[in-house]
């Protein structure tokens, strides 16, 4: 199957693909795109529309007003005057009378909000907030812990506790994740691993779809332009299919390696130091596994894409016939994403060793949890076995399909092709 003719086909595929504009664009743009999305998400999440605000703080008791005033006074945005706070203390009845008077200012946003802290807050920590937009959590969150601190201070100040004890009571719970693995050291878990998992999932998904579509187009082109008949007068269909798949696989692996280059550099050199909360636990041999596993998967999927290309003789028909393969890529993609919430979920574990799914799911798991060696080996074995089963079938359909023109075949007819003697 592999000989000088296959080599000629591989060379042509590489010339056509690697030098194509779309390949260069994709290779450069995909990382930009992914980081762009990540970055955009961060920006949107942290975007702060409340640079300035005017808030009226009404407390039912003078002690409360003082305690709140002290805590709020510590806040930097209050200190620098970008948030203007008006304090007053009044009873609930007075406040209820005042509120209608403030309504106009609130609606015109001269006043952004009114906080009412009743005396009962010292026993149940319940306070009221009045605003045109009471669900603006980014604004409320700025005050939440200060109010809590003020209430705690006031509450415990009557109970003769030391400042340390009071400060302890005020602390939230801070959970640090540590990853237990077969390594000697127990390492602190950072968000870096999640980013890597997300990245791998996305890149593998993009690459499969991109390489696959390219493959399918190329087969359709040869079929509809009738190049295939001249090709077959020199090579046989197995050599042709192998050459095309190997050529496209090399392209795909090269592209994936380029995409993973930043990751590889971070792992293998000490020049690039990630901030502590972004440390990643993936090592070079795992990256190598990911690439190898991907290569097997890529070859399998390219075989399928080539087959679909051979069945149809134009892009539109092929698009409608591609869905079974798309499902095989989409479902693992979503499973891999679900892993980011809980890397140990059973579906993910099983999927990481299933045919087709393991190509995307296993890399996502590798970056999140320690995977027993047998699972890695099983994934590879399963993938190789899948390849072994798929290829003779794909090759047969391909052989019949590339010479078949005319009306769009039905799936039943395609199954019949498997029995043809060609």
């Amino acid at each position, binding site marked *: 199957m592999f000989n000088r*003719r296959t080599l*000629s*086909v591989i060379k042509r595929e590489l010339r056509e693909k690697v030098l194509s504009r779309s390949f260069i664009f994709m290779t450069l743009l995909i990382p930009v795109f992914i980081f762009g999305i990540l970055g955009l998400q961060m920006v949107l999440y942290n975007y702060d529309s409340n640079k300035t605000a005017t808030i009226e703080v009404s407390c039912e008791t003078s002690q409360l007003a003082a305690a709140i005033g002290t805590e709020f006074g510590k806040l930097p945005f209050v200190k620098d005057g970008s948030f203007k706070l008006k304090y007053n203390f009044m009873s609930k009845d007075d406040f209820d009378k005042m509120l209608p008077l403030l309504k106009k200012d609130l609606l015109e946003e001269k006043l952004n909000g009114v906080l009412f802290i009743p005396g009962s807050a010292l026993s149940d920590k319940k306070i009221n907030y009045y605003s045109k937009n009471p669900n603006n959590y980014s604004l409320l969150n700025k005050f939440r812990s200060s109010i809590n601190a003020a209430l705690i201070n006031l509450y415990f100040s009557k109970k003769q506790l030391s400042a340390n004890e009071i400060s302890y009571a005020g602390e939230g719970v801070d959970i640090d994740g540590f990853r237990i693995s077969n390594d000697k050291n127990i390492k602190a878990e950072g968000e870096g691993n999640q980013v890597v998992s997300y990245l791998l999932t996305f890149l593998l998904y993009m690459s499969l779809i991109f390489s696959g579509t390219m493959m399918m187009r190329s087969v359709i*082109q040869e079929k509809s332009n*009738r190049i295939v*008949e*001249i090709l077959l007068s*020199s090579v046989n269909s197995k050599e042709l299919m192998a050459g095309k798949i190997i050529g496209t696989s090399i392209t795909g692996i090269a592209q994936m390696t380029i995409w993973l280059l930043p990751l590889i550099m971070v792992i293998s050199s000490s020049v690039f130091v990630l901030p502590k909360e972004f440390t990643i636990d993936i090592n070079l041999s795992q990256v190598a596994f990911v690439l190898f596993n991907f290569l097997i998967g890529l070859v399998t999927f390219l075989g399928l894409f080539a087959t679909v290309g051979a069945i149809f003789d134009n892009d539109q028909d092929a698009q409608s016939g591609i869905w079974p393969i798309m499902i095989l890529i989409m479902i693992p993609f979503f499973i891999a994403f679900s892993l980011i919430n809980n890397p140990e979920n059973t579906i993910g574990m099983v999927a990481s060793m299933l045919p087709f799914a393991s190509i995307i799911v296993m890399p996502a798991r590798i970056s999140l949890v320690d995977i027993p060696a047998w699972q890695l080996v099983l994934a590879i074995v399963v993938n190789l076995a899948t390849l072994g089963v798929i290829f003779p079938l794909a090759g047969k359909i391909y052989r019949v399909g590339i010479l078949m023109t005319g009306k769009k075949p039905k799936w039943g007819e395609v199954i019949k092709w498997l029995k043809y*003697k060609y």
Partner: protein
Amino acid sequence: MHVLEVKNLVKTFDGIRAVDDVSFTIPEGCVFGLIGRNGAGKTTTLRIMMNIYLPDSGEVLLQGAKAGQDFKDKVGYLPEERGLYKKMKVLETLLFFAELKGKTGKAVEKQAIKYLERFQLADRKNSKLEDLSKGNQQKVQFITTILHDPEFIILDEPFTGLDPINTNLLKEIILELRDQGKVIIFSTHLMDFAERMCDHITMLDKGRVILNGALSDIKAKYSQRNVSINYRGDLSFLKSNPVVEKIVNYGNSSSIKVKEPQQVQQLLRTLVENNINVTKFAADEISLQEIFVDLAGDDNTNSIAAEVKYV
């Protein structure tokens, strides 16, 4: 000596016998024509010979041995439906297809340039194929067929879509290649082309061989008692004439078969007596077209028979 032998080929598509027990032999250094109307099984036969299709049964022998990959390397094949990679450049395309046949290096490139010059395409060698006219693309395709200096050249309907000038250029090159000792095999439904160019023919109809052999032998055999005439006048009186066995009228020309060889003179006399203006009278002559009509039993040779969709 026979270099290529096709033995008892059968190929069925969805229950239709596209090729039905086809056998023929191709002698050395000849132009061989596979003729028949559309859908007769020509392309399928050629594809089986090229090992593009596997036959249901039968085999193709090259010098007595089963033809395999070694045969493919020795053949230049021009399929009926032409096509090349549109985005590839002309010279790149030529070198790629030569490489598939195992020919690489400077010599091939030189030869490619030579052919491009001959076809007046040398200045387009770095153009993409999609930028060439259809006629020029066909020329490039023809060069890919012969660039690797094949021993066998198989051309499936080579003249379709060519203008008269290029048709002549192609004919010229085919005959040149024959003189170099190559075996030319071509299929066509154009009987007069086959008649002018072929040494040997095999005629197919509905997947079966209906005629086979050297063109001269075939003509000698079928031309007996046959008279070909060009004329002006009305021949309808001949239909009831006792010496005439059969008459086929083509308008200005006609093919007449008499019952006994010695009746030819009598036929000429009858024509003159009936005031037919005879401009050409050729005894013992028959065109391939007439033989075909005779054998296939259908006046309308251009009618498209129920075509097998794979052919």
